[in-house]
């Protein structure tokens, strides 16, 4: 099965439940933005779905063998780690470890998608933080999986690269893949995601198209902010305007 299906996913940490019975299905063609405050459990949700941490409930990914899962889903962790002074093309080719090959076509396509052709022979660790982030996204793309889970993929990118990355993810969805990305930039989420899922208190508190999720009541509950959602000829815009002091968690 492509996509992702979570049933009653629960992750305890000590006496507290970080995630409390999350059920979520992501179909091919969807680009889901995962929203929530710092500490709301976005990363925990993605890592539990992958089976990287213990959980109760069911995840369609964690049920797979590790080899099958690696061909089903690519994971882009938040920590941008490149341990050695590897050339950019070699870092991207690491995505092919999941397939036990170094398929140059997939590597080339990933480099092109992230606009890294000019940097391909440069040493990855000598690049700027934002460039390294793009190299690591390209690595995940080179894995060439039906599903991509990304933890804050656009953090630290310049505006043009943020837009390019979001458009790339949207294009992946349009090809019939699924993308789930945790995001803090609600403006980007409004414009590029096909669907938003908001977490608060370990539960899904809103799930739907951006126009439905980015409504005042939900934004106050999830983020404690007030914002403006505008439908413009250029597409939907969302701008958080002020934080609500009484809505602190």
């Amino acid at each position: 099965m492509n996509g992702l299906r979570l049933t009653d996913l629960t992750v305890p940490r000590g006496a507290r439940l970080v995630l409390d019975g999350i059920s979520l299905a992501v179909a091919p063609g969807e680009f889901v933005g995962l929203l929530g405050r710092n500490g709301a459990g976005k990363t925990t949700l993605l890592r539990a779905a992958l089976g990287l941490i213990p959980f109760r409930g069911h995840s369609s990914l964690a049920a797979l063998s590790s080899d099958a899962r690696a061909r089903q889903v690519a994971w882009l962790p938040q920590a941008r780690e490149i341990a050695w002074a590897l050339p950019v093309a070699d870092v991207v080719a690491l995505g092919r470890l999941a397939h036990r090959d170094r398929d140059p076509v997939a590597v080339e396509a990933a480099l092109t998608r992230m606009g890294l052709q000019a940097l391909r022979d440069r040493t990855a660790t000598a690049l700027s933080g934002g460039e390294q982030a793009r190299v690591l996204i390209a690595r995940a793309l080179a894995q060439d999986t039906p599903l991509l889970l990304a933890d804050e993929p656009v953090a630290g990118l310049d505006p043009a690269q943020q837009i390019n990355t979001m458009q790339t993810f949207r294009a992946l969805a349009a090809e019939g893949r699924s993308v789930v990305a945790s995001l803090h930039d609600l403006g980007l989420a409004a414009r590029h995601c096909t669907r938003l899922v908001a977490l608060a208190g370990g539960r899904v508190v809103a799930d739907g198209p951006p126009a439905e999720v980015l409504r005042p009541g939900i934004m106050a509950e999830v983020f404690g902010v007030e914002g403006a959602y505008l439908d413009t000829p250029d597409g939907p815009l969302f701008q958080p305007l002020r934080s609500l002091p009484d809505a602190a968690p």
Partner: protein
Amino acid sequence: MRFPALVTLLALLCAALFVLSLLVGPAGIAPGQALTALLRDEGALTMVMREIRLPRAILAVMVGASLGLSGAAMQGYLRNPLAEPGLIGVSASAALGAVIALQTGFAATFALALPLSALAAAGLAVLLILMLAGPGGSALALILAGVAISALAGALTSLVLNLSPNPFAANEIVFWMMGSLADRSFAHVLTALPVMALGWVLLASLGRGLDGLSLGEDAAASMGINLRVLRLRLVIGVACVVGAATAVAGAVGFVGLVVPHVLRPLVGARPSRLLPAAALGGAALVLAADLSVRLVLPDRDLKLGVLMAMVGAPVFLHLIWRLRRTE
């Protein structure tokens, strides 16, 4: 440099140093004569070549390859260029086993008593480390367990020396600990070879996992790399090769630290490629060092481990100096 070219070059270097190693020794045999004696039975000359020089050269290759390979594997696993194979405490434990054998006189009971005691102690240390570090895949628990075992083995070694009633035994222990390949026989080769071979196979299988770990434990796991299996193979592999190397040669430091460090830029920093390169590089370095101890001070029995530290430390300082300038 292309990777196949580098590997070929290192292999040729090893071969050249191996032949040189056969040609140098206190017996002062002419090169041509030495090689014919090795191939054809010519009495005493053949004895020297086959029973003294050949096992010594083979052991240099085995020990060097083991230290280089395990150093590259440890650095790849920990993603730290300062890691070295002694870090998990196996070399200190193997040394303790050997020291106890020397102290109790067990080492004198039969030819292989000392290396076998060292191997037994190394095996015990691995079991302790695996127990302490737990079944998970975490690197930190492993290192802390290794440091603790290392410290304990070091303390017990000091205790044995401290309580040694016999200055000759203490002398013997101190000299053994300096590391050497002198006066080894084929019995040593055959004792170390099966253990080392198992370790080589285990470590050589780590390439894909170590490549994946370049992107961190989470990313590696998501690409289908089983971190528990990887860590288990690493620990047992390092224990086999380092335990066996220490058992037959004593403590030889710096090879596992310096060789991967020097070769890393030449293999494009890829951990999987560093493994074979560091094995060959380690073999070349130990062959060269073992040649040097015979050439520099032929009459004074200069110890391999001492020379390695004398050369290794300044080389390492130079590397750090260069690193600082490029940053």
